[in-house]
């Protein structure tokens, strides 16, 4: 059974994927003291290392950026990691999965949920970004990821999968406001960035259970307390039943 409080982040860098990965590393840095975060960066974001990390860490949460299509998700250097209906999709059973990628919500995402993935975040449309500056150097290049990766900020903070989806959609609206009313409204590239945000927001999909917290139970001690109280109650009743004098039938 996947381990709560453990997250595996797949962060390839080539073919523009560093634009997302560097934003995720910034988020991970904020949460390392709250949960165990395992990152596969650059060349390590390959299929065999991912399989090894899944087996060794058994994380409740899986995030990865990669180029994708309706039935396929790839990692560093566009090596295929999983396809709809292949065996690897079963490795995601019992986990919460976020694929920052194009189009996987059409076939791959539903297949993952059918195979037991607890919750899935992805896109039914293409996921667009502007490449105008180096990765993470300006708001222009981080804006779409600041919205999309709100899922992780929420989940890592202890919110449920459903709450994280609502936070994600609100974050898109906040980013749109940044470029129309906020500090970005004077940027000459604002119209182009708004196209990307509008497309990415319209294609953002969530599937699966809304009540999962990757950090564990809402009140962690309940996980231990409930079985302990139940065991005590059962043993007390058994002891009482044994000690209780037998009823006598009086004629």
């Amino acid at each position, binding site marked *: 059974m996947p381990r709560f409080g453990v997250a595996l982040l797949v962060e390839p860098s080539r073919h523009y994927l560093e634009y997302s990965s560097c934003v995720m590393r910034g988020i991970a840095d904020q949460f390392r003291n709250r949960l165990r975060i395992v990152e596969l960066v650059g060349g390590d974001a390959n299929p065999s290392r991912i399989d090894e990390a899944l087996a060794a860490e058994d994380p409740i949460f899986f995030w990865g950026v990669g*180029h994708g299509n309706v039935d396929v998700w790839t990692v560093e250097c566009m090596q295929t990691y999983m396809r709809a209906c292949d065996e690897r999709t079963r490795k995601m059973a019992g986990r919460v999965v976020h694929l*920052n990628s194009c189009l996987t919500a059409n076939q791959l995402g539903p297949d993952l949920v059918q195979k037991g993935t607890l919750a899935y975040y992805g896109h039914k449309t293409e996921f667009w970004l502007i*490449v*105008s500056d180096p990765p993470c150097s300006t708001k222009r290049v981080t804006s779409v990821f600041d919205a999309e990766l709100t899922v992780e900020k929420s989940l890592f903070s202890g919110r449920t999968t459903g709450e994280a989806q609502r936070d994600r959609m609100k974050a898109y609206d906040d980013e749109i406001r940044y470029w129309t*009313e906020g500090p970005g409204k*004077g940027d000459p*590239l604002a119209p*182009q960035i708004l*196209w990307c945000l509008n497309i990415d927001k319209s294609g953002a999909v969530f599937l699966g259970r809304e009540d999962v917290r990757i950090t564990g139970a809402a009140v962690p001690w309940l996980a231990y307390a409930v079985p302990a109280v139940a065991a005590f109650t059962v043993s007390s009743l058994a002891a009482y039943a044994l000690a209780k004098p037998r009823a006598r039938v009086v004629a």
Partner: protein
Amino acid sequence: MARLPPYELDRPIVVLDGVAYTPRGILEEVERGTPLGERLQRMVESQVAALHQEELEELAKLRIRLALSQAPPRILFVALTYPPKRLTPEELLREVEAGTPTGRQFIEAEKQVIRMVLARVG
């Protein structure tokens, strides 16, 4: 008009009798008190432009053409598709003009921006 981002002041927002008008142009006509200004103001206030799908479509394309012609040529539009898509402004414009699925996504996105702008000036 004060509620609009600066870049919207000079982008066309309504089409009347085949002519596209920007918020700044509309404001000038309204301030001069011309009959055209009155018509334009009524259109914006009632958001008539948003009701005609064909006009909205043409307006979106026109705004995309302008935005892409003014964009720095070194920028790229990248999609995380497999195989990857990487378009220059010129290439994206060709997708929009040809009405490809990629171009359609950007037209629809621009329509959302137009609706938002009309809601603010209306």
